[in-house]
C-alpha cells in the first residue's frame, strides 16, 4: 500500500506541476472566455475583505493581550508589610465605601488574617484602577 507520506509527496509534485502549467499558460488560455475585469474586481474585493479581517484580528489580539496583562497584574503580590502596617492600611480603607469592612473587628483579627486581608484589598484596589475593556 502507498504510504500517506508518499501520497503527500506525489500531491506536492502534482501541485507544483499544476502551478507551473498555470504560470506558463497565456492570460487568454487561463481566462477561457471569462471577463478579466470581473475577476480583477472579485480579487480586489477579497483583498479589501482580508484587510478588514486583519484589523479585526489585530484588535482581538490586542484585547486578549490586555486581558492577559490584567490577569498577570492581579497576580502581583502586595508589598510585604508588618501586621501593624496591614492593620493601619485596613483601618484607612474601612472608610472607603467600595469595601465593606468593620474597623472594630481589626483588633480581634490575627496578624496572619490582617496581612491576608490587606493583600486581598490591595490587589482589589489595583484591579479597580485598571482600565476596563470597554474603555480601550
Amino acid at each position, binding site marked *: 500500500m502507498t504510504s500517506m507520506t508518499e501520497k503527500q509527496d506525489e*500531491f506536492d509534485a502534482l501541485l507544483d506541476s499544476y502551478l507551473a502549467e*498555470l504560470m506558463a499558460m497565456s492570460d487568454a488560455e*487561463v481566462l477561457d472566455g471569462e471577463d478579466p475585469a470581473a475577476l480583477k474586481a472579485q480579487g480586489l474585493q477579497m483583498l479589501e475583505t482580508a484587510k478588514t479581517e486583519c484589523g479585526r484580528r489585530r484588535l482581538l489580539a490586542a484585547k486578549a493581550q490586555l486581558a492577559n496583562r490584567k490577569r498577570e497584574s492581579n497576580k502581583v503580590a502586595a508589598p510585604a508589610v508588618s501586621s501593624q502596617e496591614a492593620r493601619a492600611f485596613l483601618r484607612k480603607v474601612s472608610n472607603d465605601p467600595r469595601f465593606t469592612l468593620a474597623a472594630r473587628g481589626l483588633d480581634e483579627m490575627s496578624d496572619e488574617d490582617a496581612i491576608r486581608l490587606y493583600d486581598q484589598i490591595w490587589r482589589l484596589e489595583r484591579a479597580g484602577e485598571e482600565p476596563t475593556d470597554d474603555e480601550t
Partner: protein
Amino acid sequence: MSSTEPPDSRLSLAEVEVEFRSFSGADWKRALSLARFCAAGLSDWTAETLVAEALVKLQSGERVWKRGVPPLVTLKTVMRSIASNNRKKARNGPIDQHATIDVGAGETDDASPPGIQAQDTRTPEEIVDERSQLRHIETLVEGDEDAQMVLMAWADGLRGKEAAQELGFDMNRYEAARKRLNTRLASAATLRKTT
C-alpha cells in the same frame, strides 16, 4: 523562518498589498484555480475562502513573502499550508465530515430522537486513502483516460511539452486533457459551494 534573516529579505506589508493590487484578472483566476486544487477534499473550504485566508495571513504578517519569490508561488505555499492544517484538524476532530449516515435508522415508536447509523463499509485504509487530496483529484477525472494520464505525469514532476512527449500526446491533445481537468475541478468546487 529564522529570526536572524535580514528584514529586507521579505516584502513589507505595504509591498505585499501593492503586489496583489497589481494582479490582473487572469492572475486572480490562476490564484483561484490553485486554491481549488489545494482545497480538494476539504468540506469546509472553498477556493474563495482559501485565497481570502491566505491574503489575511500575508497582509497581517503572520506569513511572510520572501523577496524574489513569485506571487503565485507564495500564495501556493501559504494555501497548501492552511489546507494541510485544516485537513489535520478535520481528521483529528470529533466530527467525521465524510461519514455517510442513515438518519432514522433504528427509529422507534416512542418520542426519542431518530437513530443514526453509519453506512460506510470501506476499510480504514480505503477511508484514509479516499480522503487524501491526490485520491480526491484522481476521482474527479475518473473515466477520462487522457486527463488521468496528465495527472500521473504531473505527479511525477513532468509538465508542459515534456509531459506531453512522455505521454505520447500532441500538444492539442495534452491541452484538451488539461482543460477538462480544470473544468472538472471548477465544477466540483461549485458543487461543494452550493451543497
